[in-house]
């Protein structure tokens, strides 16, 4: 008999129902990742007890760790299922949905809140229009590199999952949106709306609620310069608040 690997999956039929665990033995192949293991369940939806069951529901798209869709908790760590190679994981492989977002079904969660936060900080450049008006502002390559590193955020939610200050009792918007705020205050045109952006992350749920646990830096799959981004936003919001306070005086 061919080698098999054991998957232990936390399942949940819908948002309201109770979660339960189900185990599966899937045939092992070389170079397998968690996605291909889940695909094996689709081909043969029978659990480890030999009972017929439903295929596991999960979210995925690119399978090359650039879209962020297949983020889940794998052996207690938030990461993408596509880049989680079976050979490098302890067995049984334990899969759970992210806990900081509402579960939709099985391993699929709803991360809409992260996109709502992007609206709050106006994470876009206010261009005059989509007609042709010549080149944009020149950007020094050094600034561009930092900006590019920030702009690789996939909005996958790993940092939210790992952050102790993102929880039911807090309003903290999390590291991802702070990094995006840094990105758009860095751009020469984006800087024009700096005040509004700083307002959005100065108050409740803003950068001051970061407890400096630095877990986000450990889990970000794209290695975003989060320490620098959060540090700089802290300084910028502080001087922004000070200025406002002085003006009010």
């Amino acid at each position: 008999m061919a080698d098999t690997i054991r998957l232990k999956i936390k399942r949940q039929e819908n948002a309201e129902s109770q979660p339960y665990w189900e185990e599966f033995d899937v045939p092992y192949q070389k170079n397998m990742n968690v996605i291909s293991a889940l695909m094996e369940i689709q081909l043969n939806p029978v659990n480890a007890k030999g009972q017929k069951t439903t295929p596991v529901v999960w979210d995925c798209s690119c399978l090359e760790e650039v879209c962020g869709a297949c983020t889940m908790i794998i052996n207690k760590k938030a990461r993408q299922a596509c880049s989680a190679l079976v050979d490098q994981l302890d067995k049984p492989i334990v899969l759970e949905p992210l806990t900081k977002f509402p579960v939709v079904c099985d391993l699929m969660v709803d991360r809409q809140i992260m996109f709502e936060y992007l609206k709050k900080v106006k994470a876009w450049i206010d261009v005059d229009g989509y007609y042709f008006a010549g080149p944009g502002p020149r950007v020094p390559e050094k600034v561009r590199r930092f900006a590019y590193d920030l702009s690789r955020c996939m909005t996958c939610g790993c940092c939210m999952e790992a952050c102790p200050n993102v929880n039911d009792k807090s309003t903290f918007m999390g590291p991802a949106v702070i990094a995006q705020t840094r990105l758009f205050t860095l751009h020469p045109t984006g800087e024009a709306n700096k005040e509004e952006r700083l307002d959005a992350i100065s108050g409740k749920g803003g950068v001051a609620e970061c407890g400096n646990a630095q877990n986000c830096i450990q889990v970000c799959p794209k290695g975003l310069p989060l320490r620098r981004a959060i540090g700089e936003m802290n300084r910028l919001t502080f001087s922004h608040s000070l200025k406002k306070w002085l003006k009010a005086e």
Partner: protein
Amino acid sequence: MAKAKIIVVGGGLAGLMTTVKALEAGLEVDLFAYGPSKRSHSACAQGGLNAAVDTMGEGDTPWEHFDDTIYGGDFLANQTPVKGMCETAPDIVYLFDRMGTMFNRSSEGRILVRRLGGVKYHRTVFAGATTGQQLLYTLDEQVRRWEDKGLVNRYEGWEFLSAVLDENGVCRGITAQDLTSMEICSFKGDAVVIATGGPGMIFGETTNSTLNTGYAAGQLYMQGVNYANGEFIQIHPTAIPGADKNRLMSESARGEGGRIWTYKDGKPWYFLEEWYPAYGNLVPRDVATRAIFKVCVDMGLGVDGKNMVYLDLSHKDPEELDNKLGGILEIYEKFGGDDPRKVPMKIFPAMHYSMGGLWVDFNQMTNVTGLFAAGECEYQYHGANRLGGNGMLSAIYGGLVAGRTVVEYISGQESGHKAKSSIFEFEVSRQKEEFKQIYKMEGKENPYALQKELGEWMTRNVTVVRYNNRLQETDNKIQELMERYHNIGLDNHNFWCNQNAVFIRQLWRRLQLARVITLGALARNESRGAHYKPEFPDRDDENWLKTTIAEYTADGPKLSYEEVDIQYIKPRVRKYDVDKEVTMNG
């Protein structure tokens, strides 16, 4: 007065570009997509976007870009739209520059360019090696800006199901399904733009994302939209084979100096450089793919006797590599295990892109009035082979054109047109009925197993090298799979987030399009661009300089042909062992 409203299906580059152009023109937009735009397949595009910005002072021009594109596509593309695309390309780059895309910069802070295949100029602008992701995010941010103002309704996590056509065959809206609640609804629109990307899943393991299901194009084909040049499928020369998909290793790796080689007589053999001295490692994709195939399959010279050759960057400065190619080196490191800065990568060709797609006119409108298409789901810009860096360009340009022409189309309509509500009710009930039938499927076949068989057959027989007998066998096989489709058993009967039932519905459309691709290839007895038949090794302009049009009938695709617009550049022999100029004088 109520605002005119359009429906855009697809949240990638083409769909989002159409969306912001239409919003700017004052239209309201309903935007449908499988998920948030950041998950779209455009995010996977790596190498860059072609535009003759000539920031390196080489004398590059939009005309050169146009000529390279037509020549690279083996003269099958209609020249008028391609010319428009190449002329607009620099403006597109500057528009994204204004919107904040983080393109790599020169020491003066100007936009940097690099070389890609089939081209002698540095013409490709890029943002690391995740250019598609960066362009996509830029447009997504702009759409979010309008969303914040309440002017665009984003339906994320929805599947487009069908077009709603009135008694005159005019498109008046769509039906769609919420993929969580499984609710099926109809939506009215004054025009509909389809921007759903390529049909990669037909080939199983490809460089495509899982959401490139081919559903929308297959469904529309079944509703009477013509499908053009389906047989032209691009096989990318450099991909990393995997258990779940083949991961793309961008052409920009060769653009930045990467070399392809294998061992011959115990020594490294740079076969592309030897066979194609004029272009070397930067020959177009169809040429590179056939060469790698020849070396591995015909000559048995693949690395370790396997179907693999080396793509080597280990001679390059690691810091520069990280700055210009970081994203793809990371992919190889994470999925392949080795560090490509130190050791050569092992790669093999994989299905990557469809040059063919829904037939559109020069205004991006299909043969169904009011129904438009843009991006990889349509056929217009690449002829028989697409050049690297032209994919994102054509998606954005097609989206721009569609965003403009829908406005013209709507303003030309009688105002206050009211489509009868009965046509929407009818289409919704038809879709509900099909879905209900899927829930009654209790046969023995597993849909994912059928899909796997389809992918294996298509990859084996309808990709790099094509023989008529094998194409015929493949069509027979597809018809057998269509029979077996009716014996599928559904494994999940929940009316909540049922990916199983949705997959089955998609599979039926994939089978339809698979026949279009296979029979188009069977009929075309010549070799042109990506379509290569050893039995007919030459291009045959006399008989085959024409666009294939597939029309749906219950008995299978009916093929007809349409003249190609060649008014600007006269067809000439295409060969990459010599400079392009040599072919112009012969």
